[in-house]
């Protein structure tokens, strides 16, 4: 088949594939409804995962509490996953927004609570997305008041080691932002 002939035939075929006449909002409403249905499915899946975790996590914890034999000494596994996994959530691909959230000062609604202020270079956005009609951002960072393990041993620690997470991570704090 000739190239020009194929171009003509493809144009003709595509022009005959006109959508059926509908009201102007109809396709948009369908798209919006599909988008919301997808969000609902994601939230339902998240709820199921949370329920499974809520059931499974207490089992080893309870076992540990009930056990009279102390475990042999073993180093605690550092929980540095927040530093190595990519940011999750629907806004994870908006670097400007994530940078702004990293620089956002940490505040608390109660003046009695002492909020640790992690150094900027240790902060990491774990989650940024829209849930329940609001924008939620979860930022984790190193607690400046906690001593790194290697400093206790008097050894030099590299930045890479810090980022691996063998420094105590501050309580993860979520921020509810004004709707964008």
């Amino acid at each position, binding site marked *: *088949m000739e*190239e020009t*002939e*194929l*171009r*003509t*035939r*493809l*144009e*003709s*075929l*595509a*022009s*005959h*594939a*006109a*959508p*059926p*006449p*509908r009201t*102007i*909002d109809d*396709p*948009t409403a*369908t*798209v*919006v*409804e*599909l*988008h919301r*249905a*997808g969000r609902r499915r994601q939230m339902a899946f998240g709820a199921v995962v949370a329920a499974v975790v809520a059931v499974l996590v207490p089992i080893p914890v309870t076992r540990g509490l009930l056990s009279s034999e102390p475990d042999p000494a073993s180093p605690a596994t550092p929980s540095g996953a927040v530093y190595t996994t990519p940011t999750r959530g*629907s806004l994870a*691909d*908006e670097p400007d927004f994530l940078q702004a959230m990293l620089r956002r000062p940490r505040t608390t609604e109660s003046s009695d609570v002492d909020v640790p202020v992690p150094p900027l270079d240790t902060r990491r956005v774990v989650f940024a997305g829209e849930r329940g009609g609001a924008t939620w951002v979860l930022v984790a960072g190193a607690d400046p008041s906690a001593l790194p393990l290697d400093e206790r041993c008097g050894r030099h620690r590299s930045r890479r080691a810090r980022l691996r997470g063998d420094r105590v991570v501050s309580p993860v704090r979520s921020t509810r932002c004004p709707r964008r």
Partner: protein
Amino acid sequence: MRAEETRSVTDFVSAEQRPLLGLAVLLTGDRGLAEGLVQTALMKSYRHWTRITRSKTPSAYPRRVMVTTNNSGHRRLSSTEQVMETVPDRPDPTGPPDEHDEQLLQALRSLPPRMRTASVLRFYEDLSEQRTAEPMGCSASTVDAHTARGLARLPASLTDSEPRQPAREERW
């Protein structure tokens, strides 16, 4: 989403639905699959609407989504169904498909998906080999090979049925 954004989405969908469906029919070789592909592309566009409106060519995003989605093996292997409140099927106002169109659809369906995609993007969307290669995730030489083989495999017996339409505006 604010009312003005919803209006701009509505304008975008109204303007793009028809050309997107035309491209989707050529990419899939099937009207039903094409409508699902367009819905998926528009839904993903809606999800990233803020970013799309900032780009120079907003219409490129749903087209790119259609190419990548249609080429994904997962979508081809799975039959996805959407639960709808209203029945979306309506009588086709264009009537039964033209005999020439049906011939070409069959010929397109006989091509492997990536060969079909390369041929459609090169000869229908008028993209260069380099720009065709971007959404397909391959090299320009691969696109060249796909299109050459696609042309060779399409039956020579297909005859022209209508004069060519005017050149399309820049969409990619």
